[in-house]
């Protein structure tokens, strides 16, 4: 008996490793090694003409902390996230609550709201840039006020955040709809008998019961928003006066690493981003005790 178990264990060991081997080799070569390499690289300076690596110790990090451009980019990224995440979550939640009722055309609405998720951000950004065009754009023609939506350094980052919200509402909404399906109908019926209106029900039943989903959506949206790149890269040209006030950390990383050829400094910027995202995630994990109700 004992011997048989051992043979089976051996067999499972063998096949287990055969099955995971392609994935593990890939992960080590494509992710684990590159991660360590990037951290390693952040202690080097790429020589002139991209030649040779010169060990500079913590110099890149000291430079990052004294670099006004990096701080500004971090601030731009945070501004983007502060607008994009709460608004896209709030709008998506309200839409999900609407669509969680007996509504005619429910699936048509869902299809429309989700549509931007299957369109390349490059194309989305091109269309919005055209809508925002200060001379010929639809927005300045339709809206009562005329603005330089994407070239005024004061508002450009918010204009980009609007594109981000527009793009992601449907996705957040689908996640909320899935969460709402779990909320038992009789809770609402009981509340209605007690005379609670729609708004009271929303704040006292829906929000607490859906808070685990909300937490998940907020955490993942913050991580994604902190990595914003495509929209900014596409909307803001290199000679746009708003560039300095809109470029994100990932934009800066891309610019240093692949335009200016300073991979060492690019690596440092991305390690800083990693730390910032980790910090924000940990803070939210701690903060969740205050508002997330797990049944």
């Amino acid at each position, binding site marked *: 008996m004992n011997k048989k178990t051992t043979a089976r264990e051996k067999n499972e060991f063998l096949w287990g490793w055969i099955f995971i081997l392609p994935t593990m080799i890939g992960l080590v070569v494509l992710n684990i090694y590159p991660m360590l390499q990037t951290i390693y690289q952040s202690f080097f300076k790429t020589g002139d003409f991209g030649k040779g690596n010169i060990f500079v110790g913590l110099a890149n990090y000291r430079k990052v902390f004294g670099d006004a451009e990096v701080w500004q980019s971090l601030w731009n990224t945070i501004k983007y996230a502060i607008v994009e995440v709460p608004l896209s979550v709030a709008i998506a939640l309200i839409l999900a609550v609407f669509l969680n009722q007996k509504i005619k055309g429910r699936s048509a609405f869902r299809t429309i709201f989700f549509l931007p998720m299957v369109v390349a951000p490059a194309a989305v950004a091109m269309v919005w840039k055209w809508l925002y065009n200060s001379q010929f754009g639809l927005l300045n023609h339709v809206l009562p006020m005329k603005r330089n939506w994407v070239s005024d350094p004061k508002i450009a980052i918010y204009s980009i955040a609007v594109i981000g919200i*527009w793009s992601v509402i449907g996705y957040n909404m689908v996640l909320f709809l899935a969460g709402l399906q779990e909320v038992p109908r009789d809770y609402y019926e009981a509340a209605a008998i007690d005379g609670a209106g729609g708004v009271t029900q929303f704040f006292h039943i829906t929000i607490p019961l859906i808070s685990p989903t909300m937490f998940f959506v907020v955490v993942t949206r913050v991580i994604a928003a902190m990595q914003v790149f495509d929209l900014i890269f596409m909307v803001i040209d290199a000679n746009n006066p708003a560039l300095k006030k809109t470029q994100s950390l990932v934009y800066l990383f891309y610019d240093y690493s692949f335009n200016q050829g300073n991979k060492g400094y690019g690596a440092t910027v991305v390690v800083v981003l990693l730390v910032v995202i980790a910090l924000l995630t940990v803070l939210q994990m701690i903060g969740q005790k205050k508002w997330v109700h797990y049944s």
Partner: protein
Amino acid sequence: MHKKSSMILIYVLLILVSATMLVPFAWMVLTAFKTVSESTQVDPFVIFPGKWRLDNFETVIEAMNFVRLYINTILLIALRVFCAVLTATLSGYAFARLQFKGKNLMFSLVLLQMMIPGQIFIIPQYVMVSKLHWTNSIWGLLFPGLVTAFGTFLLRQAFMGLPRDLEEAARLDGCNIPQTFLFVMSPLTKSSMVALGIFTAVFAYKELMWPMIVCPDSKQTTLASALAKMQGQYASNYPELMAAALIACIPMIVLYLLFQKQFIEGIATSGGKL
């Protein structure tokens, strides 16, 4: 009465949001058929093109070599989906159902990859691709998508949800591990495989930074990164830019409208990775 008026309000809001979602697409279509002078006329503002011309489409298809871009993008999607589904199903099964030494350590590497922002991998991945002389080739585009930590996690969850008895029964019938996996277990995770496939396809189609870095040659690159390049060249010819954007979007939109349920489920299970 109160109920009825609030329902009307809900419909009005839903229709307003729908309009907000659709107007940019409508404007893209309308602009794509206009001439440059129509698109830049302000007084009076032109909404519909005077004539529905295909000139802009013809120009950009020729200039951008769209046929080639389509082939590149479809090939990339096919290869990425194949690699992701194959490797993730195998490893997902092993992590869910087999007991072996080193499993937990290996799985923690999978989780680590999922938690780390993807940009941290890009510089070394690019250095590897250029050492292999795979820049401006399909292999360079494919490279970071050979395996998938997220897919492994997704398929592991799917296998964990299947009843134990099935495997026991298969084993008693004399199936060995690969047979059990292939004929009994993996067919039952088909919906997760489809979800992963769709997610992988949409991700590969939307991705911008990697193809820009690894395939700067606009003939070898994907639709998304070619759009970025084109914007730099035709900066102010919006009718042509919109025509190009429309050509790049249409196939995915049509597929989405045909397979909405699978698309929404596939992307929604991605858990914020997109």
